């Protein structure tokens, strides 16, 4: 066995990367990948696999990388995960497979994420994309059976790919002009290059999946229309896209963008390349992002990369430990010089005579005694109000169910938060032939959870369609 320490991926220097939108981690080179993979002790009971929401045979693919059989490694990964280049980059491995790796005891779990990324990138550069043999599934009249999918996020993409491989005609309807969901409009280029998402989408097209952008299910076509148009089943994967605001005075001042608006202007519409691209975004010298989740870190780190921005703040009402963002994101944000205002709660946004935001009134907080759930809730410390000067404010407080589709379907059961009630094992909803999964049934979660839901739903849909 080579050395025992977990091998980290090399990253762009913080001082350089805040001036570009290129990917931050470089990824392993071959020697590094083999070295890290060789640290795996090939456990009899590979607990890492239990930690993976789609149960990739991690032990085996890591072994194959150590044996330099990269084509073999990627084949194993793709048995369970159709988007490895994406997942290798954005999965929270530290709370999934790596948290379950036996080597965690030594503080040095295998860097599974970086190895997954290595295998996927190797395939993109060198591999032969393996031809999949598809036998079309026909109905009694000899026509291929078609299935509709609403939403092209990771859930919808996975359903489409699985069903296409089984022989169905899968058609994705996407409201926006580009396929990918949060992968294209939410997650920034420097964490997930858009070329990678495009490659995955192009692969689906090769499998025969049809993607119809600009179509809103519930508006362009109702759910009833879909079945009248000849589709035999529908998967709903429309995400949890509705932004929340803080609900404090001044939030409708100019210069205040929801994280969704800011990220979409940047990632989907490329406002950072304005005026080459026509979509503008107005960002001042001082930016404050409210919240400390992944979305907040993304918004803060993009801001830091924009010309003319001098100061970027995170404002968060709890402490260091409670920040919900991935550890790596927080670390990257700190390295890039983002200023963290913890135990700080915004009370009000103040504007100038032209209606642009200029200041945030905040108050200091302290953590109280743990409540019944064990969480220490923050309390304001009276008399500690203060102001932060800002030109741009980005509330990043999580999202809610998008009701555009769900409230327009009679008989579709929703839970009290407006998410679709879907069987977590099959994606079945209260209506026959209609399946759902991803953020629209679980609330905002992860890429891999959405994919896992898509995979299960595709299987259940196949069973349903074979019976019909």
């Amino acid at each position: 066995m080579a050395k025992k320490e977990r091998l980290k991926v090399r990253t762009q220097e913080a001082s350089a990367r805040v001036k570009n939108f290129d990917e931050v981690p470089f990824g392993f080179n071959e020697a590094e990948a083999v070295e890290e993979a060789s640290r795996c002790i090939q456990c009899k009971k590979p607990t890492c696999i239990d930690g993976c929401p789609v149960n990739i045979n991690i032990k085996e693919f890591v072994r194959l990388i150590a044996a330099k059989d990269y084509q073999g490694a990627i084949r194993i990964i793709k048995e369970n995960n159709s988007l490895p280049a994406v997942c290798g980059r954005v999965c929270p491995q530290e709370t999934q497979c790596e948290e379950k790796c036996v080597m965690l005891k030594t503080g040095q779990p295998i860097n599974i994420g970086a190895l997954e990324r290595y295998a996927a990138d190797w395939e993109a550069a060198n591999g032969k994309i393996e031809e999949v043999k598809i036998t079309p599934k026909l109905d009694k009249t000899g026509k291929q059976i078609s299935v509709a999918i609403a939403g092209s996020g990771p859930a919808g993409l996975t359903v489409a790919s699985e069903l296409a491989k089984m022989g169905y005609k899968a058609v994705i309807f996407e409201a926006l002009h580009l396929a990918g969901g949060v992968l294209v409009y939410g997650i920034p280029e420097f964490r997930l290059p858009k070329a990678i998402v495009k490659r995955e989408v192009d692969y689906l097209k090769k499998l025969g999946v049809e993607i119809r952008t600009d179509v809103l299910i519930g508006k362009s076509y109702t759910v009833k229309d879909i079945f009248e148009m000849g589709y035999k089943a529908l998967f709903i994967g429309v995400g949890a896209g509705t932004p929340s605001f803080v609900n404090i005075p001044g939030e409708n001042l100019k210069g205040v963008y929801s994280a969704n608006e800011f990220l979409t202007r940047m990632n989907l519409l490329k406002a950072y390349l304005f005026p080459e691209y026509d979509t503008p975004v107005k960002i001042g010298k001082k930016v404050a992002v409210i919240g400390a989740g992944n979305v907040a870190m993304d918004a803060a780190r993009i801001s830091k990369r924009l010309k003319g921005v001098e100061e970027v703040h995170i404002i968060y009402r709890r402490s260091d430990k409670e920040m919900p963002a991935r550890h790596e994101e927080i670390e990257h944000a700190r390295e890039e010089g983002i200023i963290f205002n913890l135990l700080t709660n915004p009370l009000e946004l103040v504007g100038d005579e032209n209606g642009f935001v200029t200041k945030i009134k905040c108050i200091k907080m302290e953590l109280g005694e743990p409540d019944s759930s064990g969480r220490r809730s923050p309390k304001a410390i009276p008399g500690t109000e203060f102001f932060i000067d800002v030109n741009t404010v980005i509330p990043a407080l999580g999202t809610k169910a998008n009701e555009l589709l769900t409230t327009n379907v009679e008989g579709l059961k929703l839970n009290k938060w407006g998410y679709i009630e879907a069987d977590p094992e099959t994606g079945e909803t209260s209506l026959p032939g209609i399946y759902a999964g991803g953020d629209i049934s679980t609330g905002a979660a992860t890429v891999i959870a959405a994919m896992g839901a898509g995979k299960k739903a595709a299987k259940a849909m196949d069973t349903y369609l074979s019976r019909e």
Partner: protein
Amino acid sequence: MYKITLKKQLSKDIKLMGIEAEHVVKNAKAGNFVILIPHENGERIPLTIYDWDKKTNVVYIIFQEVGVTTAKLGMLNEGDSIFSIAGPLGKHFHVEKFGNVAIVGGGVGVPAIFPIARALKEAGNNVTSIMGFRTKELIILEKEMESVSNKLLTATNDGSQGQKGLVTDVLQGMINSGPKLDLCVAVGPVIMMKAVAELTRNYNIKTIVSLNALMMDGTGMCGGCRVTIGGKNKFSCVDGPDFDGHQVDFNELTSRLGTFKEEEKASLHHSKIQLVGR
């Protein structure tokens, strides 16, 4: 890509376009709008659906060239294609028999009142349409509006056609002389909608306005189109665009429409576009 099947100049900076888009036409109704992108690197902009044809699957829009995106759209011709068009968006206009209805359109708001007037007339209402323009040369859709109204009144600021003055002057006249109005609808520049709403408030006439907030996705995903209605935050793309005119915070809307003033100028300059008539 969606094919442009028709292009017509209606006045010096206003154009009509027909675009093939079955998915927009299929469920289109009066009051819906589209969001389109002229070319790949372009911006998403909202435009009201003026008319549609279910036989040919063509949707018709009418737009005024006020900035980079509308100018670039105006440069495309019949046979060309646009990159993206999504719709029908927004809640459609709620049509029922109200009785006596006044429908007010100002400038490029007139195309938006056309399908609403038509639907209200078909539903048996007595529709009086009032169109306002700066001057005679800018008048559009006169014949079309006549065909969907029981009565059509026109106002021009300089008196070159119809009554001299503003649409509110005409509306005031109607209120003074005519039977009681059961509903008023107003679509046009914010300052016009605000004036109409202020006038009708005095007479307790229910008034619907169609708000033109800045929009991006049109699916309720960004909140950029938020407006304050009766003290509450609403997203105009999914909760509207029609709202009770007496509840709208028009000053906030006007302010928010100015968010990108400087960028809009820079963009025009960068694209070397000279707007007509400005």
